[in-house]
């Protein structure tokens, strides 16, 4: 008997979807547009995270060493630096590498190249370049570096400029995250309201039908269940459609993003592939939940009689 009822509920849901095709299509379309907006928000969030990350990767702290520093002293210092909490990498830049890098960076600056030739020897010192794990770790790392005074191999270490830059960056990233959170909240609230309303309108068109169902002795469960099944069907079709539309969209977007952020690390498609279940699964569950709540409220209004 239960199986028979479930089968009938599913049959009615599918019948209703087909026979009220235009109302169903409009509801699914609104759902698709809403889910597209949510996915677009995910893209914007991903881009902003990547932008912050790419800036983070470009920040490093250099400890300039004496030109005649012994290799074992440098190695000892490197090990000590690596043991500092928050440090992710310490790399050694030799005098020759420093010169090469300097020349390559200032290839077009003729006066600097001329000055180097006049000096006649490599004026640059070797250095140890420290990279912190995250932007927030730099403050701790700088404080630890400031305490490193016992090493005779260190010629100079001044991080005041870095400190100011990092403070500004920390403020900017914190603000960016706050703004993204606020925008996400507004966006999702609008989406919820739009979908909620679309489902309620779809059920409003069925109000007479619900009245007839009551009249012939249908139980409340039997009236509600097809609408709930239909709500889940809307969500399922909505997520399938948005997946089909969104993937070509991010494939088109991908090359522009890479050049815009000037980094090759932006892999939007890879990000969506890697988070497919979580993104589209949560969207399906969220949409189903909103649709079910909207359906329950709307149907509940008409089954009272």
């Amino acid at each position: 008997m239960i199986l028979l009822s479930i089968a009938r509920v599913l049959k009615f849901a599918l019948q209703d979807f087909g026979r009220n095709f235009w109302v169903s299509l409009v509801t699914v379309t609104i759902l698709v547009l809403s889910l597209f907006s949510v996915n677009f928000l995910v893209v914007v969030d991903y881009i902003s995270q990547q932008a912050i990350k790419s800036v983070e990767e470009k920040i490093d702290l250099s400890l300039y060493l004496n030109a005649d520093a012994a290799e074992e002293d440098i190695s000892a210092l490197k090990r000590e630096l690596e043991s500092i909490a928050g440090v992710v990498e310490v790399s050694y830049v030799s005098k020759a590498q420093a010169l090469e890098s300097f020349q390559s960076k200032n290839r077009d600056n003729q006066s600097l190249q001329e000055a180097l030739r006049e000096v006649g020897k490599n004026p640059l010192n070797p250095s140890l370049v420290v990279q912190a794990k995250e932007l927030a770790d730099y403050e701790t790392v700088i404080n630890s570096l400031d305490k490193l005074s016992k090493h005779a191999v260190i010629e100079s270490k001044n991080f005041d400029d870095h400190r100011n830059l990092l403070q500004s960056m920390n403020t900017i990233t914190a603000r960016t995250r706050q703004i993204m959170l606020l925008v996400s909240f507004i966006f999702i609230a609008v989406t919820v309201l739009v979908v909620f309303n679309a489902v309620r309108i779809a059920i409003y068109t069925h109000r007479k039908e619900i009245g007839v169902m009551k009249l012939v002795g249908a139980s409340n469960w039997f009236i509600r269940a097809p609408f709930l099944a239909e709500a889940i069907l809307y969500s399922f079709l909505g997520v399938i459609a948005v997946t089909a539309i969104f993937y070509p969209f991010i494939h088109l977007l991908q090359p522009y993003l890479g050049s815009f952020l000037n980094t090759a690390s932006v892999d939007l498609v890879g990000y969506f592939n890697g988070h497919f279940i979580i993104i589209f699964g949560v969207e399906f569950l969220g949409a189903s939940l909103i649709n079910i709540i909207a359906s329950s409220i709307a149907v509940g209004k008409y089954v009272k009689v």
Partner: protein
Amino acid sequence: MILFENVTKFYPPNTNALDNFSLEIKPGEFLSVVGQSGTGKTTMVKLLIGEEKATKGKILVGDWDITNVRPREIPYLRRQIGVIFQDFKLLPAKTLFENVAFAMQVCGHIPSKINLVVPQVLKLVGLEKKIWRYPNEVSGGEQQRAVIARALVHHPKILLADEPTGNLDSINAADIINLLEKINKFGTTVILVTHNKEIVNSLRRRVVTIDAGRVISDQKIGKYIL
């Protein structure tokens, strides 16, 4: 048996749709309830199908006291009382067969029984050739016949017809009344709520006249007196 015992239905702010209303209807009767608009006829119908609750008094359907029927009992009450309305109330997206079958499906009847019974009742009301038509593809009279068929699939002891001929021409109206009489002959109690003087007078059955929420006349073989 249906019994209304001193029933009052009050609607705020100051309307008594039924006022100390009492009426007894015996099993198998054919009863016409007449009265002008706003005299309480529809309220009586709504109370009988559990759409409204009485403010005071007692309503019995058989041995069942439905005065304070619980919401979850209402579907069972409605399966025992067939109801026909002026505006048909058919599901527009379902065929006539599906509309009638739906009333059985909600009660959990198995498909083989539905496939057997539905064509039979549709034949009984003369719609055997139009069972796969949608409501908007048949005439008003045929729609009302489908509604009667839907009401009959539960084998109700009571058939409540609220202005069933209101939207029909005189020929179709007469057909529907003939059908109701035929159903009554099988033992079903028929309560006909109507404005139609000709129909009431031609029936030569019991007529109850309501005014201001009270029974003002109850004639065994009555006429439309308003």
